[in-house]
């Protein structure tokens, strides 16, 4: 009877060790997945891509050009409810979220948020100079 009890305790301890080992491994894998997922869902890469694409488009644009950008995905990722503040142009710099990039064009740039057929968009207007009529 006594021997059986001792054997049982040994078995329980061994099972507990294995369970603990598995739990710790699962915690480790879960934390890695959470870290990778968080890094992947960060808006930083998207902001940079949008900013640079816009910068090149603006640099190549001629007066009268209108650039429309769908900002639905961007707004969702950045969690920015104020869609009008997502894309800005100030001091020769185009900014998307927190990322800023200089453009060399000497034309005047106007950016505004519009809703076209239910889709949130940012419109970039290229004006020849500051005297030209604003379109926002």
């Amino acid at each position, binding site marked *: 009877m006594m021997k059986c009890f001792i054997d049982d305790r040994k078995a329980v301890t061994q099972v507990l060790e294995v369970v603990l080992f598995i739990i710790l491994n699962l915690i480790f894998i879960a934390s890695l997945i959470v870290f990778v997922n968080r890094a992947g869902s960060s808006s*930083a890469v998207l902001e940079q891509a949008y900013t640079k694409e816009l*910068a090149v488009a603006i*640099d190549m644009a001629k007066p009268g050009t209108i650039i429309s950008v769908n900002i639905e995905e961007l707004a969702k990722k950045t969690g920015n409810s104020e869609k009008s503040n997502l894309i800005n142009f100030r001091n020769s710099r185009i900014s998307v979220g927190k990322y800023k990039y200089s453009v*060399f064009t000497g034309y005047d740039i106007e950016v505004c948020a519009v809703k076209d057929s239910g889709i949130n968009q940012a419109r970039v207007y290229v004006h020849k100079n500051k005297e030209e009529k604003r379109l926002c």
Partner: protein
Amino acid sequence: MLKLNRKIIPNKKTRFLQNKKAMEFIMSAWWFFVLVIIAVGVTMGVLMFYSSSVDIKELEANALAGKVIDCMIVNGDLNKAFLNNADIFSLCSLNKEVIEKSFFIRVSFYDANSLKLNYPKEISAGVLAFERDCEIGEIKNAGGYPKCVEYSIPSVINDKEIIIKIIAGSNNAGVRDDK
């Protein structure tokens, strides 16, 4: 059936391995080491991937060269204002402040036959050191250096065939404002 009944004579090494506690300690230490290696590998990979920036310097240099070519050649003819000391910034609608900080442009006129500098005047703007930096960057194939593009366009000045050589470079970089 023949039964092998070999007795292992314990030496220093096997004696240690026969010790269950010591074996468990080795295994847990080894496992911990493996976990650390995996964690460091994954973290470094993710950080490297997401911190790398998209390089559009060459695209920008191309855009700048294209813009200068557009304002220099009007309807197939060379814009005479270019040869009359006109300001390249106002003529080509370029932002002087930005160009002088992160860009470079040089326009040279060569004789089409002798390939010598034909017109005494060379038009250049921006950071002139970029021309050399571009060459170094190409040799070293390293980041942080500006990227340049070069175009040659045949044209005519005063019934003389010339070649216009345009070199444009960019070392523009974005800024992340985390405030």
